[in-house]
């Protein structure tokens, strides 16, 4: 059975490292991407507690040092990796749901469909609120004119509310679909990861895990949707006042450095005393 090596098609890099890549894909979906998603959705849900609670959370995140680096290393790159490999994996299979209408098969197909939706959603969402790149030129002459890059961390709730309400119900619906797709993808992904890594083995334990994952999905999905409701009910004007006050006091307390990029453009810049160096 020593097949002539010459006649064998040379496997691609992806094929040769199939196992490692797929396991990294599985892992990246849980940590950091999945974990980040949970934190993100829960933070968003804090908007239910009012603009100030939300703004406080955002300040906390933005007080992290080297935030762009963190974003790229722990969020953007893993998402891009997960997305690219995910597309490759999805393309390696062929759904046959029309002939085999089985629960597992539905989930298999949905996992791939929600993956595609999630890619579109996340890239659009990041463009819509974040703008993709921090470069001034990009933001001022490309993103913002397109109605993108709308989020201002130091006017978190108000800028969010404005951004979400800019096209009537279009954005909220888009976000609802996106959030639900991501939620399904994560909850089902945890379940399949449990099989992939060999955590739950038997049909019985897989069933139990399935129920647990479904519960988790419902919770996360509710968090996501509730923040959309909160955004819809936020009074942007009132929120902005509160945010500006919070900004001032934070500057005064030296817990943040002034940054106009992170504020809505309509305000005058606030004078700050230089931070005393210890």
């Amino acid at each position, binding site marked *: 059975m020593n097949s002539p090596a010459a006649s064998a098609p040379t496997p691609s890099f992806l094929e040769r490292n*199939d196992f490692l890549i797929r396991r990294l894909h599985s892992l990246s979906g849980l940590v950091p991407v999945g974990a980040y998603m949970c934190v993100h959705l829960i933070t968003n849900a804090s908007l239910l507690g009012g603009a100030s609670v939300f703004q406080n959370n955002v300040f906390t995140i933005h007080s992290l040092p080297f935030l762009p680096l963190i974003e790229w290393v722990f969020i953007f790159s893993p998402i891009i990796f997960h997305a690219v490999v995910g597309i490759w994996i999805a393309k390696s*299979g062929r759904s046959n749901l029309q*002939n085999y209408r089985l629960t597992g*098969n539905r989930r298999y197909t949905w996992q791939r469909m929600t993956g595609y939706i999630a890619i579109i959603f996340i890239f659009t969402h990041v463009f819509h609120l974040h703008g993709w790149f921090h470069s001034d030129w990009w933001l001022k002459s490309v993103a913002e004119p397109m109605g993108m890059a709308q989020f201002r961390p130091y006017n978190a709730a108000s800028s969010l509310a404005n951004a979400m309400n800019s096209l009537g119900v279009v954005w909220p619906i888009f976000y609802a679909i996106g959030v639900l797709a991501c939620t399904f993808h994560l909850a089902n992904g945890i379940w399949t990861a449990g099989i992939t890594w*060999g955590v739950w*083995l038997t049909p019985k334990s897989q069933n139990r895990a399935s129920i647990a994952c479904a519960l988790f999905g419902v919770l996360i999905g509710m968090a996501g949707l509730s923040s959309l409701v909160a955004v819809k009910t936020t009074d942007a004007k009132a929120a902005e006042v509160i945010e500006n006050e919070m900004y001032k006091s934070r500057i005064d307390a030296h817990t943040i450095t002034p940054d106009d990029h992170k504020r809505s453009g309509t305000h005058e810049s606030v004078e700050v005393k230089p931070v005393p160096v210890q």
Partner: protein
Amino acid sequence: MIAPGNEATTKRRPAKINVRILRQDGPGLPGYWERHQVDYEPDMNVISVLQKVAAQAKTSEGQKVPPVAWDCGCLEEVCGSCTMVINGRVRQSCSALVDRLLEDDANEIELRPMTKFPVVRDLMVDRSRLFRSLQRVKAWVPVDGYYDMGAGPRISREEQEQNYPLSQCMSCGCCLEACPQFNKIEIQRQPGETNEDYAARKNAAFDQGFVGPHAISQAMLFNSHPVGKNMASERMEALTATGGVQACGNAQNCVAVCPKEIPLTTSIARAGRAATVYSIKKIFDR
């Protein structure tokens, strides 16, 4: 049970059965549908329908045609020969009872060859890849030899009850047909190619594809045998190579269509766990 005669009258069955068959004259040729009509009899299965089709060798329009080619063996669902796609779903044609198929669609039974294997002719496909997978995962116990060396290792009833279902796999290919991650690999014979060269070229191509749930399950069977275990790392190497267990997409169709109800997804999860341990060990044991 009611006698077959009574059953037929109580359920009022048609006098004739229409069968639509997807035929193909040879590898690489286009497929075409053909209609046949056979007399209904009580207690028929798809095999007896096909036997009648072969004996008639005539379409329902009365046109003389070569008999439909298909594969079958034991007719009691233990040999694995007669797998085909019946009314859209893969199964053994021997245990596909006509009365039940007519409940899906009273007008017609639809037969087509498996789609994941190259068609040889009509309903016959080339399933050599399935057996190649068993070779890839070294699905055997590496005994010293066949001389008398006394009894084998003691095995608990519990172990036997775990392994017996796995060893019932009859290599029918249902799991592969239903698996969305298992795709067809068709290598056509080149003119003048010897059987050996052709087989070698096929195997080389097969080895890049997904091994399939049946082979993963066999690997787990032999990895849990006290002597089979001696080759566990070789099997894990195969299961973590290209087309290994990682190619599984967890659609779990395999376990749903398996005629022997083998816990294939449990085997896959066990293989996943073993692969986790194996690959971590491999990193640190280097």
